[in-house]
């Protein structure tokens, strides 16, 4: 008997074996017989074909195939999906733009006088705003889906505006002023504190980079962790690490800016504001928009109230209104108001983020469930 005859005979005795061999991949990866049946039908196998394999229909043929594939060994671990989540170099360098533009604007403010200074200020604000917009639209700080953007922009603008002008106004108000509009310099009756704004603009870059670090780490852990608890436990230190890294970078930038401009900057206040804005953006990026909106608005309202009480105290009979703010200011200076308000809000957001951003459901690529 020749080899060929032998093969034919075994083939005739077990025709399913040849089929199993041909559709080995399909049978190995199928999770139930119906999946094999669907796959076989997609390859053109009908009930009449199944009859040749001595089966009533494709379903019973698929069941035999499913039963005959050895399944004792665990299936090979799925290779981690190599998503190209790494942003391109331009996207990573884009956050440097607001800082550069802001530095140029501050330089222009120092070099110009009179009407030209007004134009320089307007141009600078416009340029920085556009650059910020670009940074928030793409890269690690961009929020998914532009459909429901909560109105946090006005509150954030107020907070930054307060960092620029608020301390000067508060000081002037307590000492009986202000006697006119600010002139754009860091001295005079209503001084403009350009250093905090410049530091914040420069801190855009570390903010984007640390946010990217955190997201990338979370995605990696998502693939490798075994359970949800496991993931949370590893994401929490990553969040605090990213936050600390950003604070350190902001402090370094702030120190550098103060040294260059040689002006005493409100160190603690700016740090608190930076932390608040960073956390708010990080939460927004991951789809949690409610808490940032509430905290930013509460902080802005608190600052506005502090200013308003000082002015209201000038009315007859309401002198006691300004006592808390004045006590605070005489004890720690006018920077105490933003430090306290922003610091408290940042702390609340940090606690919130440590609970929400460490959930696995916050890091679903593509979609952002809550």
């Amino acid at each position, binding site marked *: 008997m020749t080899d060929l005859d032998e093969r034919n005979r075994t083939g005739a005795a077990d025709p399913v074996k040849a089929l199993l061999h041909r559709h080995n991949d399909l049978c190995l*990866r199928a*999770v*139930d017989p*119906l*999946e094999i049946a*669907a*796959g076989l*039908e*997609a*390859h*053109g196998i*009908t*009930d*009449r074909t199944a009859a040749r394999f001595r089966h009533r*229909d494709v*379903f019973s043929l698929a069941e035999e195939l499913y039963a005959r594939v050895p399944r004792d060994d*665990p*299936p090979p671990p*799925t290779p981690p999906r190599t998503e190209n989540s790494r942003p391109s170099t331009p996207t990573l360098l884009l956050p440097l733009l607001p800082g550069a533009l802001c530095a140029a604007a501050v330089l222009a403010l120092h070099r110009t006088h009179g009407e030209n200074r007004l134009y320089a200020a307007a141009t600078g604000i416009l340029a920085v705003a556009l650059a910020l917009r670009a940074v928030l639209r793409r890269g690690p700080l961009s929020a998914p889906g532009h459909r429901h953007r909560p109105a946090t922009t006005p509150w954030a603008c107020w907070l930054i505006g307060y960092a620029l002008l608020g301390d000067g106004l508060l000081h002037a108000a307590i000492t009986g002023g202000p006697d006119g509009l600010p002139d754009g310099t860091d001295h005079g009756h209503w001084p403009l504190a350009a250093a905090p704004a410049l530091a914040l603009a420069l801190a855009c870059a570390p903010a984007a980079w640390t946010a990217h670090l955190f997201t990338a780490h979370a995605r990696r852990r*998502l*693939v490798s*962790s*075994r*359970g*949800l608890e*496991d*993931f949370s436990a590893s994401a929490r230190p990553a969040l605090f690490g990213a936050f600390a890294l950003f604070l350190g970078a902001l402090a370094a930038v702030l120190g550098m800016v103060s040294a260059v401009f040689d002006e005493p900057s409100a160190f603690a206040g700016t740090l608190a504001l930076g932390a608040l804005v960073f956390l708010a953006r990080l939460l927004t990026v991951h789809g949690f928009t409610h808490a940032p909106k509430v905290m930013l608005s509460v902080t802005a309202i608190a600052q506005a109230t502090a200013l308003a009480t000082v002015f209201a105290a000038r009315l007859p009979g309401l002198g006691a209104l300004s006592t808390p703010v004045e006590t605070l200011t005489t004890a720690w200076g006018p920077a105490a108001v933003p430090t306290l308000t922003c610091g408290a809000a940042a702390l609340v957001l940090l606690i919130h983020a440590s609970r929400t951003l460490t*959930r*696995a*459901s916050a890091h*679903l690529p593509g*979609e952002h*469930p*809550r």
Partner: protein
Amino acid sequence: MRIGLLTEGGYPYVGGEGGLWCDRLVRGLDRHEFDVYAFSSDEAQEDAGWVPLPPQVGRVRTAPLWTAEDDGVVYGRRARRLFSEHYGELAAALCAPADSSTTEADRFATALHGLAELARDQGGLVAALRSETAVRALERACRAPGARRTAREARVPDLLAVASHVERALRPLSLDWYQEDGLGVVDLCHATAGGVTALPGLLAHHFLGIPLLVTEYAVRLRTHYLTRPDSSPAVRSLLAAFHGRLAAETYRRATFVTPGDTHARRWQERCGADRSKLRTVYPGMDAAPFAEVGESPESADPHTLVWAGRVEPAKDLVSLLHAFAEIRTQEPKTRLRIIGGPTGPEGAAYLGHCKALAAHLFPDEADGPHAVGDNPVSFEELSGPGLRTPADAYAGAAVTVLSSVVEGFPAGLIEAMFCGRATVSTDVGAVVEAIGGTGLVVPPRNPRALAEACVSLLRDPERRARLGAAARARALELFTVDQNISAFLGLYLEIVARTPVRRPLLGDTGTPLPFAAPAEAHLPGHWTEPTPRAVPTWAMDTPVPATETTR
């Protein structure tokens, strides 16, 4: 009768899949009212707008399935516990071993109803289904003892993928359609597909007792198995369980299930549909364009074979060309026309491959030494000269050939049958069922058998004519639009007769009013004809269309 038509990505939208069929159904039953409840499949479709609707369509309500609005409701402690309980039950039903039967099906149904009631009473289900609570419940179910092996291996990304898919599939639960003045006013729900499309019908049955009719031309569960080949085993297993249980629940609650062919019917039986509920309703096709060709069988060229359809690899044109080479050795005068354009880049590449093969197999030939030759195989498109309609394609050839290796319901074959042409087809999909002995059938991927069948028909004009006439008679009996519509009308009437919706009328004090609805009110159709008296327009009771989007 008032029929709630449930569609997905189809009917009222322009160019929707299956829209033509629904349009014919609605226009064909102009003595009944239709309420259309439609899911749109993407934004482009919503922007494209609707087809013109006939007056019997009373109201149209649409909802997107591709996006979900978060209604901002945040659950309190009690609602969260309820949600966690129901979702946990749902997850446990998905993780249970595949062979456990009715208890798990009941568990799935109870969980589904619990979630639907939660969505109706409190809202906020979209956010809850996306929440960490849901993912945690899923993880608990997967790690529970007794869970199936593939579920136990689910990792965090798998859990997230499953949770997000389930959220998308359960979006219909959050709709406000299940009110007394929504789906409550219809006499029956007709779901035009299974799966998620039938979910509103299931809920209307649960909340309001509306009977459900499910039509499936393509079984959703089978499509689902073929659409996600890249996911991990855990995801595939859990989602297959979800869709399997949803299909089983749909078939269990439906009064009738109408598959489009035996293939769909077998899948439905396999997924737990009761045989007594199954009624095969063949898709209907418009026979009118083929009438002229069908009545003039002598117009066909006795030496021409034709293949018509969309060119793609599953049609196996290569096998057809090899068969044609065999035919040419026996009948040298035969010509082959391949009519149809490619689908997608894959189809275009395949068409190029086929053209090259045809040029290789058959050299150009001419009648004499002084004539210009051409190839016996011609590739044409339907928009070409003399080829305006599909009927023109079949008209010129004596034999129509179908060489597919994979096929659903063969629409092209039905067209050839309407034209009264003899056919040779491969035994795939619903071909045997459609042709039913009025044409020759050969095994797929067998060029020699295909060639022999073609040659036998080419040599026997009488047999060709006989088969062609029989095929046309069979198609006119089984596959016309009229039979499709009358079959559905019959089913509607049977459903309304067997399971009428009882709506007790309540008096001012909230007690049921006896004899408030006379027996005539249960008659199907308009039992009170509109009064012939002249009525001023301001006195007419114009129904306010309760549409979400303007018509």
